[in-house]
């Protein structure tokens, strides 16, 4: 089954990338035509920029930094309260994407009925169309809130596996809570931090579900990341639907980047050690 739904599609993707298949599903091989077309695609530079900002922004602000802060804070406060807040942050990950997206659509509603705008109206300001004005910020925050919990879980597990004796020793030597975190905890979780960075880079490159629901990649293409563009090329409706060949080629580039990244991380950070870290579906 893995063969039918994993390996075969993988091979098909490669083959399809060499055709100009459309809604008629005919195999017309055009060699590297799709890749040549990419150089002339006037939308691509913008999409590349959005993708980079999106991945770096989400990863840097939320998935690693905020995840780490959450893990540190929830392990430093009482056990029960810590667990409660971890559960709360995990909730969006298990919420059906449509429902999560719906909550965001309400928060960002351009009329006065949305959460943010009702606050603005209460303060005497005019409502703002958030998605229109800050498309990139919206997708980074919406994805980041979900992404943060991954880092949080892994860091928490790592922090809790640090022997208590180390903390006691530090306290006896006169370290405060913050010094304890800085000199004992952080150095001990170096590997998990690298692991989360590596793993989440790959996840973010291929994730577009929430973007599709919340902004649909718009306005125009302002929040369309690479993977979403490939999706739109094939199933996107009005713009240029059913370009399966070109879409596959776009997807293939993504796979290429993913593979290169994976191999690089492997080499540089000795992935063999990281492989022992927990893996979670994202």
């Amino acid at each position, binding site marked *: 089954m893995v063969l039918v739904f994993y390996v075969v599609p993988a091979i098909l993707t490669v083959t399809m990338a060499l055709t100009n298949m459309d809604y008629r599903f005919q195999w017309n091989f055009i060699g590297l035509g799709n890749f040549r077309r990419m150089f002339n695609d006037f939308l691509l530079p913008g999409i590349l920029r959005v993708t980079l900002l999106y991945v770096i922004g989400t990863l840097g602000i939320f998935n690693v930094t905020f995840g780490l802060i959450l893990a540190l804070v929830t392990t430093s406060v009482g056990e029960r309260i810590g667990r409660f807040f971890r559960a709360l942050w995990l909730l*969006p990950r298990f919420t059906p994407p449509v429902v999560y997206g719906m909550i965001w659509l309400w928060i960002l509603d351009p009329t006065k009925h949305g959460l943010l705008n009702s606050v603005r109206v209460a303060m005497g300001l005019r409502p703002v169309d958030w998605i229109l004005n800050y498309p990139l910020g919206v997708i980074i925050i919406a994805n980041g*809130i979900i992404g943060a919990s991954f880092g949080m879980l892994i860091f928490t597990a790592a922090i809790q596996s640090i022997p208590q004796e180390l903390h006691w020793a530090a306290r006896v030597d006169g370290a405060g809570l913050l010094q304890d975190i800085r000199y004992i905890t952080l150095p001990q979780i170096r590997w998990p931090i690298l692991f989360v960075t590596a793993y989440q880079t790959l996840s973010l490159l291929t994730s577009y579900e929430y973007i599709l629901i919340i902004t649909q990649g718009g306005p125009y293409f302002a929040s369309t990341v690479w993977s979403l563009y490939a999706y739109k090329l094939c199933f996107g409706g009005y713009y240029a639907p059913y370009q399966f060949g070109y879409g596959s080629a776009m997807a293939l580039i993504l796979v290429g980047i993913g593979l290169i990244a994976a191999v690089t991380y492997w080499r540089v950070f000795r992935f063999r050690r990281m492989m022992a870290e927990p893996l979670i579906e994202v």
Partner: protein
Amino acid sequence: MGRSTRRLRAGTVRWIRWQERVVKVLFYSFLFITALPLIVGYLWLFSNSFSETLIYSLIPERLTLKNWSFLWRPPSPYYPSLWRTFGNTLVLALGMVVTVVGISTPAAYALSRMKFPGRFGLLAGTLILHSFPGITLLISLYYVLRTLGLLNNVIGVFLVKAGLMMPFAIWVMKGFFDSIPWDVECAALVDGATRFQTWYKVMLPQVKPGIGAVSVFAFLSGWSEYIYVITFVQDKRSWTLSSYVNSIIGDYRFLDYGLLAATGLFYMLPVLLFFLFAQKYLLRVSIGGTKGGR
């Protein structure tokens, strides 16, 4: 000299205590403030689904069950019956559970207990395949399903999803098998059990928590699926709740937030139940489940 150091120490200790208290207060307020948007968001789902109008779009004003009328009457003739949709979603989720658990348990056992050359490769493969899913396979999967005649069919969706989840599930289950000592299995074999009997009667009961965890995960991922459903299923009779809520958003977004919230909450209900009562399974997969694999 001796006295002054003692005083100094007492002062330092007090200062550290004080600092610690301040830091704790800061931590608590940080946790609360950052979580506020989450709390508000989910609160809104509740309050809005049961009320006619909202003050500051959050506090319910007049309580009503009107928003929930979609349970027995579709919001417009265009919509399929809710319970049919509900049934489809259930088939998708349960289909995932059966396929994933059914295949991953024996496969993980083989990986855990039998020597074979590609073991490290498989673990590495999981990570590399991680860069494949989503969009990359979606296009060709569309083609595969079309060829197999499984488009517009929930069965096609759960087969695809189960296939994609398999490496992950096998990996987690392997962790659980790894944590069982060899001696247990040896004892069973010495007593004359066959390899299959050992697996079925001795090993399986021991990895029950793992099976539970993988089932919960498979169920939730099938239940919540969005992209594959939206892409592969257009026929209204095969809709799942994802497509239902999606088109509610499309049709009633600015008109009727009450309806939006009610359908969203209805869709989320099983997830909430799992979250409240099966949380230990969810956390076990992410932390405990793989600890055995270390």
